[in-house]
């Protein structure tokens, strides 16, 4: 038997484990400071993520929303300068979506936030105290995470309630 064949198994395992873990980090175009917006500007989650209570997608605000306050620079921050630049050029900020549910699962923010009364922090972590934007998901969005919560809250665990 060729010895190299034996090597394929650990190599495959390494590849598999590496592929499944969400060690991937994202970098965001602007180092957005959640804490500052919440504490100093007095904003709440739903002021910017306007769809979270009423729609399937929470939505990530972009220049059309940000320019309500940031049409002109309010501080000396370099990050704000980038934002004003995007607004002046009328160019969309290429935010990277960090928390992503696979296509084959139906996830609705409205269902969880408005109907299920789940706090944003349960899935997204302590965003109120984040001074830097998300570079990786707070929790890995997988079925184990969903089912654990569904079981503890005694809501449906029927596969077809989410799978599509």
């Amino acid at each position: 038997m060729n010895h190299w064949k034996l090597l394929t198994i650990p190599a495959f395992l390494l590849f598999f484990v590496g592929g499944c873990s969400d060690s991937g980090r994202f970098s965001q175009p602007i180092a957005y400071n959640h804490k500052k917006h919440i504490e100093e500007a007095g904003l709440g989650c739903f002021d910017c993520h306007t769809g979270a209570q009423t729609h399937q997608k929470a939505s990530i605000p972009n220049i059309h929303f940000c320019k309500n306050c940031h049409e002109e620079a309010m501080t000396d921050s370099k990050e704000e300068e980038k934002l004003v630049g995007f607004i002046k050029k009328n160019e969309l900020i290429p935010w990277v979506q960090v928390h992503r549910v696979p296509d084959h699962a139906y996830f609705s923010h409205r269902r969880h936030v408005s109907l299920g009364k789940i706090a944003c922090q349960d899935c997204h972590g302590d965003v109120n105290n984040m001074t830097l934007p998300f570079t990786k998901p707070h929790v890995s969005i997988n079925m184990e995470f969903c089912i654990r919560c569904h079981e503890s809250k005694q809501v449906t665990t029927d596969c077809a309630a989410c799978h599509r």
Partner: protein
Amino acid sequence: MKWGMVIDLQKCTGCGECAAACKLENNVAIVEPRESEMGRTMLWMDMLTIYEGEYPRLRVRQIPRPCMHCDHPPCTKVCPVRATYMNEEGIVAQIYPQCIGCRYCMAACPYTVKSFNWYKPSFPPGMDRATNPDVSVRPVGVVEKCTFCIHRLQMAKEQAKFEARDLREGDFQPACADSCPTGAIVFGDLENRDHQVNHLAHSPRAEKLLEDLGTEPKVIYLKEVD
């Protein structure tokens, strides 16, 4: 609650609108002609060709055939990984990430409603960007079939709950029933007396496909009367 469908063959003209609507709604892959000839066509709503009478009084007609969502489904009994099962509302669901592609269910289904993804789903240029975001595009190697547009049910239930009311008859309609130009396809709760399907299912014209197999289909045909 038991979701079911009634197809009135008196009203059905065999136009195939339901089949087209289904294919678009559910991102059912388009298979090339060569593969189609090998019996790999993918259709959740097929049009069965029925020959009635003999020449010269031969009559050919087409009837729609979705998944029957049997009450005693043969497919779920053979699935080794519970990728297909019947839920509490009577929908025979297909869970794609669970499917290992063994195709036992395809062999077990007497109505041949299931399709296997032999290839990575592909769509003609222009259509690939126009897939329905509410339905996943299935990967290669899994079996798929009509789900009674369960994604619409998921959304309809949520909407009803958001408006603090019960699900109404018209809230959840699959794409085929929605699109039928003659209103031949009626969908609803077979156990709810307020729903039209409940009355139609007890019509003297009602019949089920391959009824003697004991699969108890929840798709009921109303035969034509002369």
